[in-house]
């Protein structure tokens, strides 16, 4: 269903570029928003159609 390849995934988001995010204990972060966003980046996956659940604001108008 999704057209991105694993090669594309590696190019877009190689593990090294997560900068140790997998080691961050989100409970130590002072911000609830940051904790959520770190989790989201950890699970960020170009193969998942994440942009298609609530799309109102993908385009600015």
């Amino acid at each position, binding site marked *: *269903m*999704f*057209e991105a390849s694993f090669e594309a995934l590696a190019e*877009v*988001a190689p593990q090294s*570029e*997560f*900068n*140790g*995010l997998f080691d*961050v204990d989100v409970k*130590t*972060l*002072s*911000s*609830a*928003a*940051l904790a959520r*966003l*770190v989790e*989201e*980046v950890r699970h*960020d996956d*170009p193969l998942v*159609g*994440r*942009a*298609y*659940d*609530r*799309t*109102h*604001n*993908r*385009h*600015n*108008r």
Partner: protein
Amino acid sequence: MRIDTVLVKVASRCNINCTYCYVYNMGDDGWQDMPALISRETITALADAIKEFAGQQSQPFATVLHGGEPLMMGARRLEFLLTALRNSLPARYPISIQTNGMLLTPEIADLFSRFKVSVSVSLDGPKPVNDRFRLGKKGESTHDSVVAGINVLRSHPDSEFLYAGLLSVIDPACDPRAVYDYFKELGAPSIDFLYRDGNHSNMPYGKESFESSEYGDWLGRLLDVYLADQNPPRVRFLDDIIKLSLGGHGIKEGLGDAEYGIAIVETDGTISKNDTLKSSFNGADKFSEAWSLKVSKLADVFGSAEFKMYHDLQRPTSATCKACPYLRVCGGGMPLHRWRNGAEYDNPSVYCNDQKALISKVASRLQNEGLKIDPRLAIQSA
């Protein structure tokens, strides 16, 4: 190229007259040539066209109902439209609507619940903030009617699905905390903030010069409020910049390096470019050929050389952007913000320094939390 959004102008007229509106008040007059409302004949052609296109593109796309004010089409025609769309598109294809909310009734909310249409409402803030620019046709306040519409959504049994969030155009003269707190009061699950439309030849309201950063400073103050909130809603603009800075991905047009693909369908079935381009010059959103979905196949239009040229416009072309260490997060901004008479779109965004100020502040906040920013960003934190 993938299309992620088919934005349908179901009404070319509006029941209010926001002074900053790119459709009516920034020099474009294309709306005058369009039928006031999408007809049943065009709705049927639209449903057939997108059904065919859904069979040709493996990735789902969203259908966004837009205007003018889309609820001006009324409940009966809306039901006809939604029946046609849902008969053409499975549930995994989102349908949503961007509205000023003033015409929302329980009957319409029921329709949206039945056809799985989520609703985003445009509101700029508390009454004094909203009513500065979002006015009725006689200059009257719109705030109370908008909030009444929001309350229709909030009180509906399906509110968790229906009420997608609020969309707000930034007024850099107002207090971002007051806007944020007010939107939380209104139970917004998601908030998006937009830059005012404008360009190098028509400097946006509240921005003194290309070098100034009033909007970036405003968003920076909003960032402080957002990160201090222990129960925050989603704030799309900030979320995207934070995620991109951490090495992740954003979803918004005009930020980051993700591709986006949008086609606009006018009330007569004509296909046009990203309608926000209207703010550049009169007719900027028109293709040289007046494609209509009643005649042309969507896949053929989207596969054409001219559509590709329009699509490629999302990538900045200026040497300044290409060499900029902020580019992976900034993305070069929206094409409409790059416009300059003469040089056209071959410029950095008019909000370049606002973006830099905000991204630097985000980088600083991340580093203060012990988080490392994406090594591809060689930016200086604030």
